[in-house]
């Protein structure tokens, strides 16, 4: 397993930037998941589907 402890270089802006973009991508992930579930639910409720 890749070591869970890693020294981040002092002042490593890349590490912080990656964390910020990861948070943004995480939001996109949840949004996409919610949208897929919403569409499934709508299709199952639609008698004409």
């Amino acid at each position, binding site marked *: *397993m*890749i*070591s*869970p*402890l*890693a*020294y*981040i*270089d*002092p*002042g*490593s*802006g*890349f*590490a*912080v*930037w*990656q*964390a*910020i*973009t*990861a948070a943004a*991508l*995480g939001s*996109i*992930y*949840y949004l996409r998941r919610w949208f897929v579930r919403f569409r499934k639910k709508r299709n199952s409720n639609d008698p004409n589907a």
Partner: protein
Amino acid sequence: MISTLSFRDPDGAVTCFGDRVIRRVAAQRAFDLRELLQLRSVQGMISARRLINSRELALREEEDLEPRARAIFDSFGAGGLLLEHDRVWFPSYPAEWPAEMLYAAGHLTIDLAEAILEEGYGLKDATPHNVLFRGPNPVFIDILSFDRRAPADATWLPYAQFMRMFVLPLLLHREFGAKTGELLAVRTHGVEPEEVYARCSRAQRLLPRFLGSVTIPTWLAKHCSRQPAKQKANGGQVDQEKARFILAAHLRGLRRTLQKVEPRSDLGKSIWSSYSSTSSYSAAELEQKLQCVGRWLKDCNAKTVLDLGCNSGSFSAIAAELGAQVVAVDADPVVVGRLWRQASREKLDILPLVVNIASPTPRTGWRNSECPSFLDRATGRFDTVMMLALIHHLLITERIPLAELFDLAADLTTENLIIEYIDPADPLFQALLRGRDALHATFGTELFETTCQKRFTILQKQPVKGSLRTLYLLQKK
């Protein structure tokens, strides 16, 4: 001969025994590595020759290794495994690559990271030193860079290293004409975003290609603690599916970032990039030369060729088309980059490198012994060496004595030397002299032939009609 090729990773070391490359893997990594090598994606990369082939040595093969080898491996303790890798015929290092080859190595790294992501593995580092080239094709060699990743970890650990060692040098090349080889020769950890930030104008810092790679990381770094921060690499614990989603998106984003700094084929004119159109040869003279060299390469059955001062690589291409493995070197990264593009496109077995033969790549690394010098690697590796339209530059500009040139050639070749004599009356010779005629007053055919015959036998000579140049085919004594 035994040489240790890598030793920094506590999980293993690579040692070269003659022509064999053997990696000792410590016990704690053996199981995962065995599993990794069975993965379909990894097998696919090996079949495509993008990942180095690895064969586990059986116990009886281990016992057959000579005692010195076993002593090195036993220092890693009991257990573990021994892997034998295919030998890459001519290793080269990022300091010798043109920007195009660094770009290709970067893409290979991303390809591998994406291929193993779904299998639960990741790369723990992303340095160009993980890549060698077979001809023009990159191959990833450091299988210990692969490791199981924590399923819930959304962080790509080597992100900063990838940016420093691939993206930022390529960005400097594309925007400021920097030579990536020179950058990586002295900056073993790559280029920091702060360095690029300092070179940019205020307007440039806000451009998209600088914003995410340079400006924002630099701004953020100023706000990070000055104390060394010990932080969990899996600080971003999320569910597994989300982690995969984020990592995959990061890798796609990195690929797009890398594509934005692709070296442009139209970029860069250099002193030598238009040599083929500005040299003193006419088309007919060049054709004569091509025919003669081609005939000699065929007659000598050249299998391993070193082309010194290759420029456009026309003669390297002839050698490759005749089935030789070719290493082509030139001091000009623009022409070497172009030759790499041609070799890739036409699938020629040419490894083009940026090397100034008057001051070739030295030994570098820990105790000056991690990366052997160009001459260490090249000596005695080639059955044929070509020095075409080169010696007058070494004689006049670099002021290397003629005897030294032949000594070098004799060290590099095991059999043949194809060399071009340029008469002092040649216009380019005169242009280089620039008033230093007295230094080369004695240079002429007689001195050339007398000097070469101390190390070589003249097999054939062919004047290039209409010019003041003569081609020589020499055999090492």
